[in-house]
C-alpha cells in the first residue's frame, strides 16, 4: 500500500483516536521508564564477556562471591591518628549507614600475635638476638625493678657505655667487620616527648616500646590494619549493597560513607579521606551522567526548537513537530526500559541522538506540507501530498540510518549490541511518532492560512554567495578539498586511542582522584589481576614467578600472612630463649617517681649531647646525629622548664600514672616476647576468618592478587601487565585482564561496525540509485567527511576513546542522508550544474539539528559524554562542509548541463518543490 493511502486511511481518518492512543502510549512509556530503567557504569556495561575468560570469571565469582566493595582511603602523616580515624569510621558505618553490609578496617590477628617473631627474616632474628644480648642488662634490671627513674638511668648508662666502648675498644669490632650497635636516640626522643606531654596533663597512653624494640615490632601490619607499603595510606573496605530499585544503585551507601567521612573529619582535622573502588566509581559516573544527560536533553530540545522556529518563521507548526518528536523519544525510552532495562555511558547518546536526527523527519515533512499548502491545497490534501512526495525519502533515510545503527548488533560486546538495538529502534520509533502524531496535530490545530505560490526568500533558487564560488570554480574547490583530504589522511595515522576509562569520568571526580592517588603513591590500585591456585605451594611458586616480573609491584595471597621458612626460623627462636632467661616475667610494682633523681639523670644524658656551639665547631669527617641530639637537648630543657612552672606534686602524680601505664605495657611486651620465643609454627587454622575469606575460595582455591607497577588503566601498561600475568598463568583474570580484552574486542567490534555499516548502506544506496556514478557521488559526504573529521580531531586534540568510537555508526546518518538527498535532487534536476538553494537549506538544517542534538553533550562534565558530543559535532560538521562544497563542485564537473548558473526565479515547478521538501 502506498504511504499516502496508508496515512489517509489511518491517522488522517481517525486523528483523535490516533492522538489519544499516542498520548496513552507516551504516558505508559514514561511510567515504564521511571519504574524499570536503570543506569550502569561504563565498566559494568563493558564487563560481560564470553568464552574462556567469562567462564573463568564466573568460576572466580562462584568461589569468592560477587561482592561490591568500596575502598575508603585515609591519608595522614600520623599513623596512630589514621588508625583511630579508621576505627571510628568503621564503627559509624556499621551503625548508621544503610546499604553498607560489612566493614573491614583491620584483620583480627590476635591468634597470630604469639607467632610474630616468625614473620621476621632469619637475619632479623639473628639481629634481634644480638640486640637482646646487648640490652640484656637493661631488660633484666628494668623487669626486676621497673620505673621511670630506673629506665632513664639505664638509658644514661647505655649511652655512657657506648661512648666509652666506641672511644677505647671500637676498633676491635670494626676490624671484625661487625656492626657496632649505635646509641639509637629515637626511642629516647619518644620517651622524652611522652614525659613532657604527661607532665603537661593526662592523655591517652601510646606505647613507646615498639620504638625501643624496633627490630622486633616495627611492622605495624601485624596490628592488622590495611596499610599501603609506605604507610601513607590506610584502607578500610566496605562491602555495599546496591539498591536494585534505584536508578543509581549505589547512591545510598556511597553518599552515606562520604557523609560519615566529612563528619569525622571535623573531629580529625588534617586527615584526608575519600572513597573509591568499583561502587564509588560507578556511582560517581552514573551520577554525573544522569545530571549531564538531563541537562543535555533539555539543551538539545531547546536548541533544536529554536532552530526550527527561526527557519520556519512560526511557532505552532514547529511546536507540533516537537510534540511528535518528544512522544517518539518517550516511546524509545519506554522500549529500552522493557527490552534492555538499562542505559550505560554509551547509550547516554540516546536522547540527544533521537532529538538531533529524529527532528529531521518532522522538518522534512513540515517543509513539504508548507509547500503543498502554498500551492493552495487544503490541510488534508497538503498532508497527503506531503506524504506522497516526502514520505518515501524520509522513510528511506530513517531505514538506512537505523540499519547503520543495527550493525552494532553484529559485535560481540553486549553494551554495543544494546546500544545498536536501542538507538536503531529508537530512531524508527521517532519516525513512527512523526508520521503518526504530526499529521493529526496539523489536521486538528493548524490554523495558519495557506500562502499561495509565494516562495519565501530562504527558498529562492540561488545558492548563497559563498557557495556560488563552489559552482563557478569547481576545480579550485576540488583541488583545495583534495589537499585538505590528503592532510587529513595523514592526520588519520596520528589520531590516537585512549582506552583509560577513568579518563572518561568528570574532572575531579572523587573516586577517580583517590584511585589515581593510590596508583601514584602506593603499589596498589582498586584494579588488580587475579590468579587462582590449587595448593599453597602453587601460590608460593606463582608468587615468586610474579615478583620477578618488571610490571608487577605487589603480590598478595594467603601465603603473605603465612611465615616463610618456618623450619629455619624456629631453631633461631629457640636460641633467643636463654637471652631472656634473666628477664623477670613477674609484674613488679614500680618505685615512686623521684623528680630530683629524674632531673639529675636527664642532665647527665644532656651532657652527652652536642651543644649548638659544639655542632658549629664540628670539623670531623663523620657526621653525628646532630638533629636527634639537638632534639634530646631541647626536650630535656623543656622538661626542666615545665618542672619549674608546675606544682611538683601534681607532676609527680601525673608521671606516676604514666609510669604505671609504661611499666604495665613493658611487662606485656616482655611477656609477648617470651611467648613468641616459645611458640610453635603458624598453621592455616591460626589465620583469622576474615583473612581466609579474602584469599581462600569456597571451592578451596587460593586467590593471588597481583598489582601492576604502572597504572592498570592505561592501555599500554595494562597490555604489558596482562602479558606478564599470562606468562605466569594463562588463565589469569581480574579487572585489567577483562579491561584489556574488552578494549580489544571493542576496537574489533567498531571496525566490524564500520565495515558493516559502509557495506550495508552502500548496498541500500546502490539499490536506490541503480547507477554506479550516482552511488559514488552520494558516498562522497560520508567518506570525505570521515577523513576530514580525523583531521579536525588532531586540531582539537581529541583522541578516540571507548565512548566516542560510537561516532563510527553515528556519522553514517548525516553522511548518507546528505549524499542521498543532494544526488537525488541532482538527478531530478536532470544533472543541472547548479542546485537550488533549498536543497542546501534542507541539508544544512538537518545537519544543524543533529549537531545541536549531539553538541548539547558538550555541557557534560563526564569527559566521555563530552568527547562524544564534540566528536559527533565535528563529524557532522565535516560531512556538512563536504556536502556544501566538494559535492556540489563534483556535481558541477560531472553535470551533463554545465552551462553556468541557471537563472530561475519566480514560481517553481511542482517537481522542484517535491524534492525540496524531501531535503
Amino acid at each position, binding site marked *: 500500500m502506498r504511504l499516502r493511502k496508508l496515512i489517509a486511511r489511518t491517522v488522517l481518518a481517525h486523528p483523535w483516536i490516533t492522538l489519544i492512543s499516542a498520548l496513552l502510549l507516551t504516558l505508559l512509556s514514561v511510567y515504564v521508564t521511571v519504574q524499570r530503567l536503570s543506569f550502569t557504569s561504563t565498566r559494568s556495561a563493558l564487563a560481560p564477556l564470553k568464552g574462556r575468560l567469562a567462564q573463568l570469571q564466573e568460576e572466580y565469582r562462584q568461589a569468592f562471591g560477587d561482592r561490591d566493595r568500596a575502598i575508603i582511603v585515609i591519608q595522614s602523616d600520623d599513623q596512630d591518628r589514621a588508625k583511630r580515624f579508621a576505627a571510628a569510621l568503621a564503627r559509624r558505618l556499621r551503625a548508621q549507614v544503610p546499604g553498607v553490609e560489612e566493614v573491614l578496617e583491620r584483620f583480627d590477628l590476635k591468634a597470630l600475635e604469639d607467632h610474630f617473631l616468625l614473620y621476621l627474616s632469619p637475619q632479623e632474628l639473628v639481629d634481634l638476638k644480638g640486640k637482646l644480648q646487648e640490652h640484656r642488662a637493661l631488660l633484666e634490671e628494668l623487669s626486676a625493678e621497673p620505673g621511670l627513674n630506673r629506665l632513664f638511668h639505664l638509658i644514661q648508662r647505655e649511652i*655512657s*657505655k657506648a661512648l666509652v666502648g666506641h*672511644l677505647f675498644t671500637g676498633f676491635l669490632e670494626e676490624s671484625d667487620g661487625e656492626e657496632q650497635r649505635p646509641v639509637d636516640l629515637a626511642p629516647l626522643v619518644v620517651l622524652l616527648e611522652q614525659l613532657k606531654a604527661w607532665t603537661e596533663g593526662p592523655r591517652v597512653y601510646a606505647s613507646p616500646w615498639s620504638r625501643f624494640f624496633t627490630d622486633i615490632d616495627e611492622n605495624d601490619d601485624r596490628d592488622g590494619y590495611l596499610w599501603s607499603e609506605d604507610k601513607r595510606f590506610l584502607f578500610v573496605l566496605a562491602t555495599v549493597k546496591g539498591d536494585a530499585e534505584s536508578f543509581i544503585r549505589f547512591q545510598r551507601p556511597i553518599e552515606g560513607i562520604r557523609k560519615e567521612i566529612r563528619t569525622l573529619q571535623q573531629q580529625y582535622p588534617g586527615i584526608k579521606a575519600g572513597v573509591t573502588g568499583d561502587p564509588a566509581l560507578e556511582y560517581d559516573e552514573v551520577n554525573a551522567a544522569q545530571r549531564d544527560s538531563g541537562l543535555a536533553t533539555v539543551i538539545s530540545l531547546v536548541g533544536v526548537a529554536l532552530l526550527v522556529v527561526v527557519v520556519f518563521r512560526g511557532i505552532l507548526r514547529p511546536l507540533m513537530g516537537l510534540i511528535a518528536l518528544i512522544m517518539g523519544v518517550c516511546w524509545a525510552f519506554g522500549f529500552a526500559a522493557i527490552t534492555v532495562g538499562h542505559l550505560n555511558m554509551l547509550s547516554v547518546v540516546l536522547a540527544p541522538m533521537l532529538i538531533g536526527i529524529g527532528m529531521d523527519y518532522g522538518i522534512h515533512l513540515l517543509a513539504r506540507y508548507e509547500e503543498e499548502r502554498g500551492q493552495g491545497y487544503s490541510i488534508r490534501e497538503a498532508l497527503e501530498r506531503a506524504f506522497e512526495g516526502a514520505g518515501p525519502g524520509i522513510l528511506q533515510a530513517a531505514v538506512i540510518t537505523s540499519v547503520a545503527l543495527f550493525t552494532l548488533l553484529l559485535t560481540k560486546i553486549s553494551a554495543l549490541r544494546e546500544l545498536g538495538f536501542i538507538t536503531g529502534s529508537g530512531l524508527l520509533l521517532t519516525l513512527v511518532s512523526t508520521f503518526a502524531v504530526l499529521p493529526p496535530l496539523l489536521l486538528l490545530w493548524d490554523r495558519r492560512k495557506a500562502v499561495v505560490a509565494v516562495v519565501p526568500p530562504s527558498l529562492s533558487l540561488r545558492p548563497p554567495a559563498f557557495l556560488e564560488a563552489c559552482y563557478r570554480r569547481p576545480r579550485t574547490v576540488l583541488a583545495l578539498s583534495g589537499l585538505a583530504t590528503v592532510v587529513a589522511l595523514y592526520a588519520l595515522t596520528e589520531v590516537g586511542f585512549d582506552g583509560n576509562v577513568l579518563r572518561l569520568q568528570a574532572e575531579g571526580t572523587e573516586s577517580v582522584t583517590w584511585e589515581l592517588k593510590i596508583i601514584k603513591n602506593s603499589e596498589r590500585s582498586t584494579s588488580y589481576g587475579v590468579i587462582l591456585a590449587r595448593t599453597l605451594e602453587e601460590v608460593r611458586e606463582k608468587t615468586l614467578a610474579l615478583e620477578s616480573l618488571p610490571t608487577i609491584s605487589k603480590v598478595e595471597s594467603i601465603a603473605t600472612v603465612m611465615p616463610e621458612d618456618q623450619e629455619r626460623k624456629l631453631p633461631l627462636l629457640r636460641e633467643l630463649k636463654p637471652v631472656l632467661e634473666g628477664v623477670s616475667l613477674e609484674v613488679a610494682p614500680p618505685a615512686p617517681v623521684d623528680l630530683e633523681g629524674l632531673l639529675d639523670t636527664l642532665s647527665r644524658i644532656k*651532657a652527652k649531647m652536642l651543644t649548638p656551639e659544639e655542632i658549629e665547631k664540628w670539623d670531623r669527617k*663523620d657526621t653525628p646525629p646532630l638533629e636527634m641530639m639537638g632534639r634530646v637537648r631541647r626536650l630535656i630543657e623543656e622538661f626542666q622548664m615545665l618542672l619549674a612552672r608546675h606544682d611538683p606534686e601534681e607532676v609527680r602524680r601525673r608521671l606516676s600514672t604514666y609510669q604505671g601505664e609504661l611499666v604495665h605495657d613493658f611487662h606485656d611486651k616482655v611477656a609477648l616476647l617470651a611467648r613468641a620465643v616459645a611458640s610453635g609454627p603458624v598453621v592455616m587454622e591460626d589465620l583469622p576468618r576474615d583473612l581466609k575469606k579474602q584469599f581462600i575460595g569456597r571451592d578451596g582455591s587460593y586467590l593471588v592478587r597481583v598489582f601492576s607497577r604502572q597504572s592498570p588503566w592505561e592501555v599500554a601498561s595494562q597490555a604489558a601487565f596482562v602479558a606478564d600475568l599470562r606468562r605466569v598463568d594463562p588463565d589469569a583474570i581480574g579487572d585489567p585482564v577483562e579491561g584489556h580484552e574488552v578494549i580489544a574486542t571493542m576496537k574489533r567490534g567498531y571496525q566490524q561496525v564500520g565495515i558493516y555499516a559502509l557495506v550495508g548502506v552502500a548496498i541500500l544506496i546502490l539499490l536506490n540509485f541503480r547507477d554506479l556514478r550516482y552511488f559514488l557521488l552520494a558516498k562522497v559526504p560520508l567518506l570525505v567527511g570521515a577523513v576530514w573529521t580525523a583531521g579536525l580531531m588532531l586540531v582539537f586534540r581529541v583522541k578516540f576513546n571507548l565512548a566516542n568510537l560510537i561516532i563510527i555508526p553515528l556519522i553514517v546518518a548525516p553522511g548518507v542522508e546528505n549524499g542521498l538527498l543532494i544526488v537525488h535532487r541532482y538527478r531530478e534536476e536532470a544533472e543541472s550544474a547548479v542546485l537550488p538553494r533549498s536543497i542546501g537549506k534542507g541539508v544544512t538544517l538537518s545537519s544543524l539539528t543533529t549537531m545541536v542534538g549531539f553538541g548539547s553533550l558538550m555541557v557534560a562534565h563526564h569527559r566521555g559524554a563530552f568527547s562524544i558530543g564534540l566528536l559527533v559535532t565535528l563529524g557532522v560538521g565535516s560531512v556538512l562542509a563536504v556536502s556544501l562544497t566538494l559535492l556540489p563542485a563534483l556535481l558541477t564537473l560531472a553535470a551533463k548541463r554545465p552551462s553556468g548558473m541557471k537563472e530561475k526565479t519566480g514560481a517553481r515547478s511542482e517537481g522542484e518543490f517535491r524534492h525540496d521538501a524531501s531535503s
Partner: protein
Amino acid sequence: MMRRARLVARKGVMAGGIALLWVAFAASVQAGETTDRVKGELDRVSAVVKDPALRGAAKEEERKARVKEMIFQWFDVEEMARRSLAGHWTKRSEQERHDFVDLFGGLFVESYTRLVVDHLADQRVVYLSEAVDGQVATVKTKFLSKRDDPTFVDFALFRRDGTWAAYDVVIDDISIVGNYRTQFNKIIHTQSYESLVKKMRLKQESEGLGTAGKGSR
C-alpha cells in the same frame, strides 16, 4: 650503609661526652693526697692544652706529644693491661705480657690523648670525695659543662713506688678498664688471644704508633 650510619651515630654521641672529660679549672675542695694528685695532673694537662703557644694546627703534633708524655707518666698502663686481661694475664708468658703492655699502652694513651687534646673545653671540675683503702684509692669528681650539665668521673689510683698512679677512669658508671676487660674476654673466648693481639697491632699500625715504651718508664 646502615653500618656506617650507626657508626656515625655512635661517634656523635661519643664526641658530646668527650668534651666533658677534662677541665681547665678545678674547683677548690678540701683535698687529700689523692685528690691533690688527680688535681695536679689535670691542671698540668690542662695547662698544655690551653697554652696559647701550642695552639693551632701547626702545633698539634707537639701538643699531642706533650700530653701523651704526661698521660704515660700518670697512668700505670701495665696495671691497666693486667686488669684488662684479668684471668688471661696469668696464662701469658713474660714476653707476651711485655708485648701486650706495649701494645695496650700505646693504644690506650693514644685514645686518651686524642680525647684530651681534641675536647678540652671550658669546664669546671668539682672534686666530690676521695676514698683511700690501703694501696688503692678513688677520687670522685663531677665535670660541669658551661650549662652545668654534669658528667661524673671517678679516678681509680693505686700507690706505686710511693706515688699515686691512675689505673682506671670510670665515666658515668662505666669503667674504661672494665670495658677493655669485657671486649678482650669476648674476643679471646670467641676467637683467640692471638686474634686480639693481631687486631691491636692492626690498629697500632693504622694509627702509625710505635711501641708504648717511648716516653714511658
